[in-house]
């Protein structure tokens, strides 16, 4: 499994401070999880006139990308750090980069965190689709008896599920 990125202990003091500031910048759609926990921030590098923050978009069409970049610049500016945000497409974002802390926060918030990504590549599509290889647990009652209602939920990155036991619907963060 790809390890999520963490601040390089050898990075400069300025970059380290920037990482701390970014840990408080949350996703505009899911306010309990930070852009670091989502694995959106890939690197923070000290430059001649401040820092360069390398981010990777989650989905190509994600409408929150602009807001996230603006929030990152604003948060760093408020902390007195001049910042430039650079978008990198490669390697592509994967839900495997979501930290353990991020997953726990999603679950507390009522969103089932993503299972691991199916890495088998293109194949014949099997119907009665399973989103991943792991069971999907209800974030409220922890039951594994859950069923898919819709492949697209409140946002493109989530699917809508229902718990058969407690009967509550919930969002599932799709493995990508």
């Amino acid at each position: 499994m790809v390890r999520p990125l963490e601040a390089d202990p050898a990075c400069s003091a300025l970059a380290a401070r920037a990482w701390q500031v970014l840990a408080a910048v949350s996703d505009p759609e899911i306010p309990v999880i930070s852009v670091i926990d989502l694995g959106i921030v890939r690197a923070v590098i000290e430059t001649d006139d401040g820092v360069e923050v390398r981010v990777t978009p989650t989905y190509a069409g994600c409408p929150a990308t602009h807001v996230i970049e603006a929030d990152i610049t604003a948060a760093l500016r408020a902390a007195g750090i001049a910042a430039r945000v650079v978008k990198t497409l490669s390697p592509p974002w994967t839900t495997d980069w979501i930290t353990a802390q991020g997953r726990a926060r999603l679950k507390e918030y009522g969103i089932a965190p993503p299972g691991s990504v199916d890495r088998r590549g293109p194949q014949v599509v099997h119907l009665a689709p399973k989103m991943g290889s792991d069971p999907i647990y209800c974030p409220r009652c922890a039951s594994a008896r859950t069923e898919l209602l819709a492949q697209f939920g409140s946002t493109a990155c989530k699917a809508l599920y229902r718990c058969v036991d407690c009967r509550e619907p919930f969002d599932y963060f799709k493995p990508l």
Partner: protein
Amino acid sequence: MRPHVDYLLRLGDSSLVLGQRLAEWCGHGPVLEEDIAMANVSLDLIGQARLLLAHAGRIEGAGRDEGALACLRDEDAMAYLRDARAYRNFTLCELPNGGIEKGGVHGADYAITMVRNLLYCAYQVQLWDRLRESADRELAAIAAKSAKESAYHLRHAADWTVRFGDGTEESHARAQRALDQLWPYANELFATDAVEEEVAAQGIGVRGAELHPAWETMIDATLAEACLVKPAASAFRSSGKAGLHSEHLDFLLAEMQVLARQHPGAQW
């Protein structure tokens, strides 16, 4: 350079035009979950289009010192200021949501939309998988990113195709009709032309014909589960990728581009 740009436009314009068609379902979906699904798939496709068109514009303007005119090659200019003859999307993507027969049912038919998505998204899945190795590193990055999203689009379309095909008499008839109408338009995707020969020789792109076997395997398996009959091969070949489009693209572009053209240079 021109074949490279044309190739990128083919992929970008196809995503954009299909994205526009799917967005037409917004507010008119058969059920709420599908209204949302079409808006989300459309958004993903538009995201792909932005990346590809921006890249095509950069390649086209490379080496030229255009100053203020460089804005004429950004993703918005590429999308809103080109006419149908300059668009390079596959004709399959521009066909109306009601199909090509006169009228269609209520003007739009979800079976047409789902079967079209099945055919095109299955193509994209094969395409992106090959383009990960492209010598054009930006295209390779776009492909790696798009592959994950297209896999979900394909799953959604295949699921519905099976439900329609292996459903009621009416859903089965409409799914078969959709397949029969759309099938000839798939030929264009796999007919390697001079542009593809050139980009394949440079290691940038892939010949359409090479994607056909894996595509057909995927489609055959889905159609079998859907109890649908694969149409006979035909000699028909559409020509959207050469800029020669059906009568439908002009209307689509007129609607898509009117606001930007009425307010040139506006910033939102």
